[in-house]
């Protein structure tokens, strides 16, 4: 476990850098988390995915996989990788302050 500080608020992250408490997340934190991962600017397209991921988590208790994102977010898988080159499901989950999406069993 580590702590990080975004917009002056201390938050707890797990070993892989995901929020341990998703309710500690604020929209203003997103650009800073993104920058740490090499995404310098969050465009409207990024935000569409981040909000989608966050809403889905709040509804279902889990983050969506890339395949789910490609089918339901309105952004195609190819574009998802353009926006989040190191893996859309994981990167969007980190930026949206939710736990790591788990593969199914």
């Amino acid at each position, binding site marked *: 476990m580590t702590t990080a500080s975004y917009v002056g608020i201390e938050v707890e992250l797990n070993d892989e850098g995901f929020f341990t408490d998703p309710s500690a997340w604020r929209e203003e934190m997103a650009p800073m988390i993104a920058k740490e991962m090499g995404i310098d600017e969050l465009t409207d397209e990024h935000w569409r995915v981040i909000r989608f991921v966050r809403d889905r988590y709040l509804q279902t208790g889990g983050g969506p996989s*890339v*395949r789910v994102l490609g089918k339901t977010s309105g952004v195609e*898988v190819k574009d998802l990788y353009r926006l989040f080159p190191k*893996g859309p499901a994981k990167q969007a989950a980190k930026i949206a302050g939710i736990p790591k999406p788990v*593969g199914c*069993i």
Partner: protein
Amino acid sequence: MSTVIVIGAGTAGTLVANRLAKQLSPNDTIIAIDQDNSHLYQPGLLFVPFGKAKPSKLTRPRAAQLSRRVTYIQASVESIDTKANTVFLKDRSPIPYDVAVIASGSRVVTEETEGLIGEGWLKDAFTFYTLEGATALRDRLANFTSGRIVVNVVDMPIKCPVAPLEFCFLVDAFFSDRSTRDKVKITYVTPLDGAFTKPVCSSILGSMLNDRNVELITEFNTGSVDYASNTLVSYDGRTVPFDIAVLIPPHAGAEFIFKSPGLGDEFGFIPTEPKSLVSKVASNIFVIGDATDIPASKAGSVAHFEGEVVCNNVLHYLKSEPFEETFDGHANCFIESGHKKAMLIDFNYETEPLPGKFPLRIGAPLLKESRINHLGKLAFAWVYWHVLLKGRDIPLIGSQMPKSGKQFSTKPVREVTPTQSQESH
């Protein structure tokens, strides 16, 4: 005088129809519907590519597996109207129901991956998840002496998630037996960040790949298959060359679910209450087996453990009683590891696969290769046709996961470093 329709007469549909036959009143009608009359023992598909199971021995007529109390209709379901409680069939009149049990399973979708169905399909690229694919792969492996074999899970969820790993172990044993193992490079390519989803198990299975000299490539999301250069290409631009690709394409629910408004999710799996197995769509629709969206393995053993709860809840519904919420996600799988050995894993929603003994402190070793477990895996075929499908309970093995015998505080034995991963590229 109620009508219960079971949609799909594969593993789950057959066992639930046979259980209902024993428990419903003689005045009630039980109908089972499937699109063909050939029941395939899917666990046998794993052995077909190695010539260890004969395709013709893996299928039996569907109707013969059902109790005489069940009316079998061979027809393709087109859609379900959940408001009008009616099932629509191809070329037959619709059937109204009081209760529907959906057991239509999951299928591989080859169209979702760009280029997969191309000139190399069933020549250089195969899946052993269908009888046609497993048989074509058998013929290709028989003449293969050297080169690269790549086993790739394209995306999750898939049925029997350990089967692709078992395939790697068996392919290793197959070529070592022929003394050509040093000429064959085997690579396992997965979208997950390790060999498997559950940590303890993932670490043990990862070591087993390592011990067998199987390369592990993780976090690889296959975007396309290119037969011009025989390579798998990931969405983030990585490539894996192959001479033979053994692919496990993404899965989806039955087609009619996509044509039934409000029934399924984006993959055609049906939103289901995890403990009662009542659908979230309507209280007179129950879901069993691979067709659900619950976070349990898509496996025949799971369908077996679900049978009791589904059957009880159908009865509760007909008597206007509250549902029972007793399904715990129990799964129990043998993992064939080659050279006549196998491992056993036993887990549920809350408990990941752990080492120990099954079902009690004395019993078969868990998460450990042994001869006994290999015999268990082979015996499973007999148990499948004679106990599981008949809707009988297996002695000593209850629906709920046994806790005694498991070592609860075990740390992973050995960590494996993936050969190639997201971060390193």
